[in-house]
C-alpha cells in the first residue's frame, strides 16, 4: 500500500450529506475486476445522465475540479454498503483524501487499507471549506497527516483520525506482513481457545 504523508491539491466540494457507497460506486459495477480503472465509474449516476453524458452541474465535472485530489463533503460520507470498490473508484480517479464531519465506519476502514485518508472536521469547518472553495475554486488545499492539519488559504484546521489508522497510513504497512510476525501468538491463541470453547467449532452437519 502506498503511504500517505501530505498532499497539496485542488479540492472539490460535494456538500451533500449521506453520500453513501451506492452513490460513490453503483452496485452494477461491483463485478469489475481490480485493474485500476474504477475511477471511470466514480459517482457514476451523479456524474452522468441516463445516456452516459456528463451532468455539467456535478462539481467534479466542472473544469476547475476535474483534477481534484481532495473532496470536501457533508456528514456520513461513505455510509452504507461495505463495498471496497467505492474506495477503488475514488483512488483510481485520483482522490487521496476526503474531508467530512463523519464517515461510514467500514468505508473509513477500507480507505485506510488502500492509502486513502478520511479526515474528520466539524460541520462548521467543512461548511467553511466548502464556502471558501466555492469562492476560490482553484485554491490549493494542503492536508498533512503527521500534524493532522488542513490549510486552505486563510483557513487552518486540525482534523481528527483514529490514531491506529493514522499510523497505518503514515507507514503504508502491509497488514499481512504485520500479522504474520505474530504467527506464534495466533497459534497459541487458537490452541487455548479450542480447549476453552470447544462449542465454537461448527458441529458436523448431519
Amino acid at each position, binding site marked *: 500500500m502506498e503511504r500517505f504523508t501530505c498532499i497539496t491539491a485542488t479540492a472539490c466540494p460535494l*456538500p*451533500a*450529506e*449521506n453520500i*453513501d457507497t*451506492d*452513490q460513490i460506486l*453503483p*452496485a*452494477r459495477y*461491483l*463485478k469489475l*475486476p*481490480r485493474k485500476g480503472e474504477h475511477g471511470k465509474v466514480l459517482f457514476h*449516476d451523479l456524474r452522468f445522465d*441516463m445516456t452516459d453524458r456528463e451532468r455539467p452541474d456535478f462539481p467534479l465535472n466542472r473544469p476547475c475540479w476535474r483534477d481534484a485530489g481532495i473532496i470536501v463533503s*457533508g*456528514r*456520513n460520507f461513505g*455510509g*452504507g*454498503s*461495505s*463495498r*471496497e*470498490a467505492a*474506495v477503488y473508484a475514488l483512488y483510481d480517479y485520483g482522490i487521496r483524501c476526503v474531508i467530512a464531519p*463523519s*464517515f*461510514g*465506519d*467500514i468505508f473509513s*476502514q*477500507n480507505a485506510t*487499507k488502500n492509502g486513502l485518508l478520511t479526515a474528520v472536521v466539524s460541520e462548521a469547518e467543512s*461548511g467553511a471549506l466548502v464556502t471558501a472553495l466555492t469562492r476560490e475554486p482553484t485554491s490549493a488545499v494542503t492536508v498533512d497527516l503527521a500534524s493532522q492539519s488542513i490549510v486552505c488559504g486563510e483557513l487552518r484546521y486540525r482534523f481528527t483520525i*483514529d*490514531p*491506529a*489508522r493514522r*499510523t497505518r497510513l503514515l507507514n503504508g504497512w502491509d*497488514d*499481512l506482513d*504485520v*500479522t*504474520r510476525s*505474530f504467527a506464534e*501468538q*495466533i497459534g497459541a*491463541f*487458537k490452541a487455548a*481457545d479450542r480447549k476453552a*470453547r*470447544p*462449542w*465454537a*467449532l*461448527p*458441529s458436523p*452437519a448431519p
Partner: protein
Amino acid sequence: MTTPLTLFDKLWTQHEIVQRDGESLLWVDRHYVHEGSFHAFSRLAERGAMVAEPELTFGVADHYVPTRGRGEPIANPEIARMVSQLEQNTADQGITLFGLKDHRQGIVHVVGPELGLTLPGLLIVCGDSHTSTHGAFGAFAFGIGASEVAHVLMTQTLWQQKPKRMRITADGKLAEGLGAKDLALAIIAKIGADGAAGHAIEFAGSAIRGLSMEGRMTLCNMAIEAGGRCGIVAPDTTTLEYLKGRAFAPKGDALDQAMEDWIGLKSDCGAQFDREVSIDATTVAPFVTWGTSPEDALPIDGEVPDPSREQSPDRAKYLQGAIDYMGLKPGKKLTDIAIDRVFIGSCTNARIEDLRSAAAILANRVCKVPGLVSPGSSSVKRQAEEEGLNRVFRDAGLEWADSGCSMCVGINGDLVAEGERCASTTNRNFRGRQGVGARTHIMSPAMVAAAAVCGHLADIRSLMARKS
C-alpha cells in the same frame, strides 16, 4: 472488586490475540463469503495463498442469483460467471458452499442463523455490511471490505480498533401490528444514519427481550443503517430455544458447556457505556421512509418535511434534494404517496415471521400494484409453502420467487424501473439502490402488504381495524 463489563467488552476480550499501536488482532470464529468476495480470492491467487481455516469459512450464493428459473442455466453470462466463480473459489479452497443447487441456499444472513452456524459468543465477519444481523444472537458480527476479507481468509484474524460502547434501551410493548422494523426506523430517525458511528450498539430493554429471534435479527441488521460497527442482543431463553436442533449448532456435552458459557454473555450490572439512548416502545408508530437515507423516516401519519422550515441551509438543501429525487412535495401526507410496486424480501425482512405478517394482511385481499416476494432462504420458502403462504401471495396478485438478495440491491436483474416507486421491506432507500432512478420507501413487511392492498403508503392499523 472487578470492574463491571459490557457484553461487548467481554466479546472483544475473548477474541483478542495481541495489541499493537492502538489496534487489536482478533480471532475470527466464522467467515461467510459470497459471490462479491471475488476480489479477496483474487488476492489469494496473486500470492498463491491458501485459506487458513476452511472449516470456519462458509460460502453462500445470494447476491447475484436469479430468483426465477432455478434449475435452468443462468441466462445472463456475467451473472453466471459471478456464481460459477464462487463455486470454483470455494471448491479450490475446500470451503463448504451453499450454492445455487443446494437446498440450504439463501441469503447469507438468513442461512447462517438457520443452520446454527451463527452462535452466541462468536466473532463473525462477512464482506457485507448487514453482517451486523448475527449480533441478534449475542455474537460480535460486522461487515468488512475486500482487503479485510482477504486478510481473514489468509490468517483467520483481523486488526480492529476497539469501538466505543453504546446502549440503546427500548422498554415497553410495541403496539399490535408493529415489529422490529418500526422500532429500527424509529431509532435511526432519532439518532441519525451516522448516530452510532464508531460505536458497538447493545440493544436492551423489555421491548427487545419481547422480540423473537427474527425480530432481533431485523433490528441488528439495521444497526449498520444507524452507522454502528455492530448491533448486539444478549442471549436469553429465546436465543437458546431457537438454536436447539440446528444443523451446525453444538450438541450433547458441547451444547451443555456452550449454554453455561452463554449465560455469562450479558452486560454486568453497573457496566459503563460511552453513550446511552432510550426509546419508549409503547409510543412507536408504524414507520416509513420518505427520502433517500434510512434516517429520513417518519411515522406513517406524518408529512413530507418542508425544507423552508429548516434553520440550516445545508440541511434544507439535503431535504430538497431528497424530495426532488423522490418526486414528492413538501407537506404531502405520507398516506397520499401512491406506489407502483412492492418488494418483500432481503436479509432484513424475509424470514418466516416476516412472510407470515405480510400474508396476514394480504389474505382475502387483492393488491392494487404488482410485486415480488423473495423468501430469505430456500428453507424459508419451503416452510412458507407448507403453511400455504405462497398461495396467499399469489392470490393477492404478487409473484412468488426463489431466494436471494434480489431487488434489495438489484444486481441479479430484479430491478425497479426509473421513476417507479416501490414500497419495500429492505434496508436502504438510497438513490438508485433498487435500480437507476428508482424510488424506494422502506417499511415493515406488514406495512408493505398494506401499501400493496391500498396502492399507496398506508397505516397498517387502519387495515387491522377494518379486518376485525
